[in-house]
């Protein structure tokens, strides 16, 4: 794995304006992806994973406000890109697979219509060539009858097939980074494994940069090089996947890993007491402190700095401050 940096998110703060006020969701997210690297992002529901991913392509909901931070793609700040640079990024460089394939495909358009539009605007091709490209992508996504899928409306396809269509979209052209935002969460249990295998083998085969957002910790552990743990809008721990999973440092990570039901174990996991904080009035200091068993005084005061505890394994927790 080369060490050339592809994507670097620095101190990203994103909030949402709502009728109840502003919810301060992302609270200084830092995340790096190297060329060809597979990066996992884990964290419970509502921790801001999708918000982070959508920020990268600047496709946040219209009520989102990016308050602070930078997102560098190959050294250029995405947040300051002009229209044509941004379009180029979306068309050629980064692709994204959405959390729910059903809501991600416009129900009133055939799969082929959407694909052709995407290809035509990205590559300025004639219909014939564009269609060929689309069919090739559908075939790559292991869809059994690409011609038929191309000519179908999303409602005529099963959930698994819809997500394969979305994977096909992400495969069009030679991408440098594919973001998969919980690609299997909304699929039937029986389909999950198939789609996940497809995705991981494609990523391996193409040697493309990959951000794999998931709550399926086992799948993340097996399929990524490095992993980031997210809690309430902060990355609280990151490092090589092996190290983080075998030696979790942050009290939150420890609890999160405990939550995985161990098929061999006799006892049920205890879960984490409390719940993810209210983003309208987030806790001061470390956002995990109200739920933490080891809370110190300083945890309530300021956001802890990241510490490199072992080689390339970082944690943002006061327990590890020297």
């Amino acid at each position, binding site marked *: 794995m080369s060490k050339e940096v592809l994507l670097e998110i620095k101190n990203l703060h994103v909030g949402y304006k709502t009728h109840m006020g502003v919810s301060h969701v992302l609270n200084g997210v830092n995340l790096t992806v190297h060329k060809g690297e597979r990066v996992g992002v884990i964290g419970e529901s509502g921790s801001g994973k999708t918000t982070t991913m959508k920020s990268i392509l600047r496709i946040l909901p219209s009520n989102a406000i990016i308050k602070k931070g930078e997102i560098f793609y190959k050294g250029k700040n995405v947040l300051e890109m002009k229209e044509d640079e941004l379009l180029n990024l*979306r068309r050629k460089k980064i692709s994204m697979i959405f959390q729910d394939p059903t809501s991600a495909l*416009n129900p009133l*358009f055939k799969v082929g219509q959407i694909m052709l539009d995407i290809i035509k605007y990205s590559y300025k091709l004639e219909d014939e060539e564009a269609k060929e490209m689309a069919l090739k992508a559908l075939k790559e996504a292991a869809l059994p009858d690409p011609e038929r899928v191309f000519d179908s409306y999303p409602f005529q396809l099963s959930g698994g097939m819809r997500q394969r269509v979305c994977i096909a979209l992400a495969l069009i052209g030679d991408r440098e980074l594919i973001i998969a935002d919980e690609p299997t969460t909304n699929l039937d249990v029986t389909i999950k494994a198939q789609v996940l295998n497809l995705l991981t083998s494609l990523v391996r085969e193409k040697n493309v940069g990959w951000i794999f957002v998931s709550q399926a910790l086992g799948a993340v552990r097996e399929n990524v090089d490095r992993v980031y743990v997210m809690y309430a809008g902060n990355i609280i721990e990151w490092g090589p996947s092996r190290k983080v999973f075998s030696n979790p440092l942050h009290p939150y990570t420890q609890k999160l890993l405990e939550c995985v039901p161990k098929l061999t174990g006799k006892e049920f996991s205890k879960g984490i007491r409390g719940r993810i904080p209210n983003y309208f009035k987030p806790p001061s200091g470390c956002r995990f402190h109200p739920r933490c068993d080891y809370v110190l005084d300083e945890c309530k005061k300021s956001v802890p700095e990241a510490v490199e505890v072992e080689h390339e394994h970082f944690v943002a927790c006061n327990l590890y401050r020297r």
Partner: protein
Amino acid sequence: MRAIWKYIWKRVLYVIPTLVGLSILIFILSRVLPGDPALMAAGPNAPKWVVEQIRHQLRLDKPLWEQYYYWLVDLFHGDLGYSTYTKRSVTADVIEYLPASLQLIFMAALFEIGGALALGIIAGRYAYRLPDNIVRVIAYIGISVPSFVWGLLFQLVFASLIPLFPTHGMYSYGTVPPPRVTGFSLIDALIAGQFDTFVDILWHMVLPAFALSLGAMAQDARIIRAGMVENTEKEHVSLVRAYGIPERVIFSKYILKPSLVPAVTVMGMDIASLLGNAFMVELIFQWPGFSRYGINVMLNKDINGIVAVVLVIGILFAIANIIVDVVVAYLDPRIGRRSQ
């Protein structure tokens, strides 16, 4: 294509029982409501035998089911019965008055659709910004002010104070109406090659049609706008944006199309109800249409006229319904296919 014809055919079949039901309902209502139609037709001073004769002529001396049966038989011969108000066949009345109204409604519908699309799309495109707020104010006024008030206002402002349009009627003074062929004066004018007359009629239609269209236009603009605002936040819009489709295409294709589906339904019904709403407007602009006829038959308790008027409105709704269903099925593939 074949599928769509099958779909239309099915919708038509569905409509028939509805219309039969409506005809029975209005038939009974027109006969059981207080007021003796025969007496009203004969006048207060008529001798009793005249009243009885009219009663017999209207078959009011027969049981209700028998009246309905003969009414149906007559209907199949194109006869809607005798009008005690115009003293001739109701069929002739419908043929005489309906085309003028339909013509007016057609123009109002064009205004309605065009205006609603334009206002709705502008408001949706610039949601929560100045254009949206302006459209919102226009829409509130449009919805809350009844069409006859618009009629009076337009007449005052655009016909009297600033004489841009004629104040009333269908033809200017001195214009010779075209020979009656279809009853639609616009079409008849074209058939007769009287292009000046054609323009003259159009000119007379602008104010009443516009007054008539405003309420529905405002309402439908709001619906389109709401749809666009809702769809803008949909995940499928994020997806096409994520893949670099230009904003203008996203807006005019991936946001607009799903926003039109609910609007089409309401639009269709709004247009169908224009016939009912047209009465006051027709009265103000002295438009020789069906709505005026409609109110007169009701005031005179002309039972055959009442039944015919209600049925015509019902048929118009049915047609609007079918058109709406077809357009919606065309826009939304899930609808046409599911029912097969």
